[in-house]
């Protein structure tokens, strides 16, 4: 691996919230995020004291563990000017749910609000905060984009990824019909109710196939694992990638769920 370009010595300091799925399954996404953020003129650090945002506990009704994890994230990230996650659902957890989760915690209620105010999903941060859209990337292909439910409805991010993709030479974006409908992932829902999750996914896959795009992108690895897993099961030849990989021009790795031989 080639060394990263000399990191900026000035500019705001961003703490990258890697997200557990990216850490475990798709490190490329985090490297792509770092490249984009640094190109946008900020310094990036990755605290090691991070694991997961706590959604599995929070959405399973385990408020106590979710709050413990939220406090851990706040302590690890409160020294940064901004916190950026390459995920709408983890971003939504930090931005929308931490303040609710810790509202009655005298030590953390205010700190949760402060963290929420400086936390962003990656594409939204690049466009809405940094005003960064000058990309160093090309991508030959027809692409469709799946909006994650959290990006859309918790963070109200819809234009940012599209504005960025519009600046990638060679890339044609075809809108996905019913892109506002869930892909059926839903975290633990996907394994608690696999049949229902799979049926919701089927409708999503049909819409993707109807676009005749050769690549499907999203900004949430949860949705992407679900969609890539579904397309792989059907042996459909559509590349599935995190939008950051394309925006950073880092598409030399095999796509999600694709074999190394391509």
């Amino acid at each position, binding site marked *: 691996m080639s060394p990263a370009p000399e990191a900026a010595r000035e500019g705001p300091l961003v703490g990258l919230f890697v997200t557990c799925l990216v850490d475990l399954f798709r490190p490329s996404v985090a490297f792509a995020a770092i490249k984009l953020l640094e190109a946008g003129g900020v310094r990036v650090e990755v605290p090691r004291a991070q694991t997961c945002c706590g959604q599995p506990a929070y959405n399973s009704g385990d408020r106590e563990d979710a709050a413990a*994890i939220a406090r851990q994230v706040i302590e690890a990230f409160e020294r940064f000017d901004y916190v950026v996650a390459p995920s709408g659902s983890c971003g939504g957890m930090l931005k929308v749910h931490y303040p609710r989760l810790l509202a009655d915690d005298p030590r953390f209620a205010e700190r949760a609000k402060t963290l929420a105010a400086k936390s962003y999903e990656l594409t939204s941060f690049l466009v809405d905060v940094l005003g960064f859209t000058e990309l160093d990337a090309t991508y030959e292909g027809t692409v469709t984009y799946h909006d994650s439910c959290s990006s859309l409805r918790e963070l109200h991010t819809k234009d940012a990824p599209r504005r960025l993709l519009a600046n990638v030479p060679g890339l044609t974006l075809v809108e996905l019909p019913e892109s506002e409908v869930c892909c059926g992932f839903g975290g633990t829902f996907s394994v608690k109710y696999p049949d229902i999750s799979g049926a919701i996914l089927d409708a999503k896959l049909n819409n993707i196939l109807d676009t005749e795009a050769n690549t499907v992108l999203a900004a949430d690895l949860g949705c992407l694992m679900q969609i890539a897993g579904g397309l792989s099961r059907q042996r459909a030849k559509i590349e599935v990638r995190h939008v950051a990989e394309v925006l950073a021009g880092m598409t030399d790795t095999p796509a999600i769920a694709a074999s190394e031989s391509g």
Partner: protein
Amino acid sequence: MAEATLSFKKAAANALADGELQRALQNIKTGFVAKRAAAKTKLPEFDALRTEARAIKDHTLTHLDLYLEAYESKVVESGGQVHFAPTAADARDIVLKLCRERGAKLVAKGKSMVSEEIGLNAHLEAAGIEVVETDLGEYIVQLKGETPSHIIAPAIHLNKEAVAAYFRRAHKGRLTSRRLSDVKDLVAEARAVLREKFLAAGVGITGANLLIAETGSSVIVTNEGNGDLTSTLPRTHIVIASIEKIVPTLEDACTILRLLSRSATGQDITTYTTFTTGPRREGDPDGPTAYHVVLLDNGRSDMLGGIFQDMLRCIRCGACLNHCPVYGTIGGHAYGSVYPGPMGAVLTPALQGLDHARDLPNASSLCGRCEEVCPMSIPLPAMLRAWREHEFAQGTRSWSERLALKVWAFVAKRPRLYHALAGLGVPLLRRLAGGRGRFTWLPFGTSWTRVRDLPAPEGRTFQQLYARRSREIANERP
């Protein structure tokens, strides 16, 4: 009902395998969803109305006792009577008693989800009273011996061919060669059959979309006019409604009605919007001679002042069902509760107890589309999560699920341990996958792999790779 809820997963699997149901559910997208979107676009003040409607309901719920008393005194003033029913059993008994007092052998019913909630039909029939549903969808599910699968479109799970078959079986003495291939034919036949029932019925029972404290009126919205016939032709009209249906004024009712029809069917206004106030007055050409309102509590007053109070703002438009990906794939019956979909998954545990609805709050991806379309801005995902918290606190989820969650949380709260384990596990998983990039099956991962492949990890964890890169950069610096 409770048993059905308990076998949710099985019912859902059956629903997914039911081709007729799956075809019928497809119609929701092109029907209700598209029409609601168009209606909302056409009304620039939709969101302002939403804010206003929410404030009306919040205010009313805060002073519910006051408005209920005001409503009652207005009903009495207009010659009617109000009966308070704390439980479903109380409501059933009150209605049966009224039917008996009036000597009714046949009851005509307008569409009422509250009557479904209390199991009214079975109770009256057990007492020897014939009950005929007069809303077309309700009539169809009654013929089929089913319950409604949708709160505003009871027979949405059925196609017109199936309905034609039920009509041929149920309507004896008609030409077997008659045409029943179009919806129009079906409506005409149902209308002819039901007309006789309206005229013969001793009691007409309707639900209420709204009750107005200022005037003592009850309001129903329909597209078939059956509600008007039910409330005007029989000698006695019984309105059965739950206590949260109340609004202070006529003006308030109109604000909510503007949201209701648009959110439900995408109509600016339904074909019929009917206000009834008391029995027939001197000089009225028609109308019942007796007017009764049965007000059902059935657990609702316990929701006041608690985290589930917001649910009492619900106006039963069905938008959350129509936009729910889970409802859209399994339909209403799989929920096993009178109220299905997101609103049902929140309301059912409140009305019947969590024991009778364990799966309902869990069977949601929390995608948030329900809250987005809810005209009353009810935070449905947050309330589904609140039920999950109740359940978790009770410790009733399966031991394997709780163990998995606890082990995961233990590790997630210890970053060093987490990274050590991830650093061992991820490369191992990668080696297992070989160069294939995916797993089609994994031990302990079958809940995932039964419906889709699992993408394999790229190789090492990000934290491993990032630590290595940081070291490399440090070494290159002089």
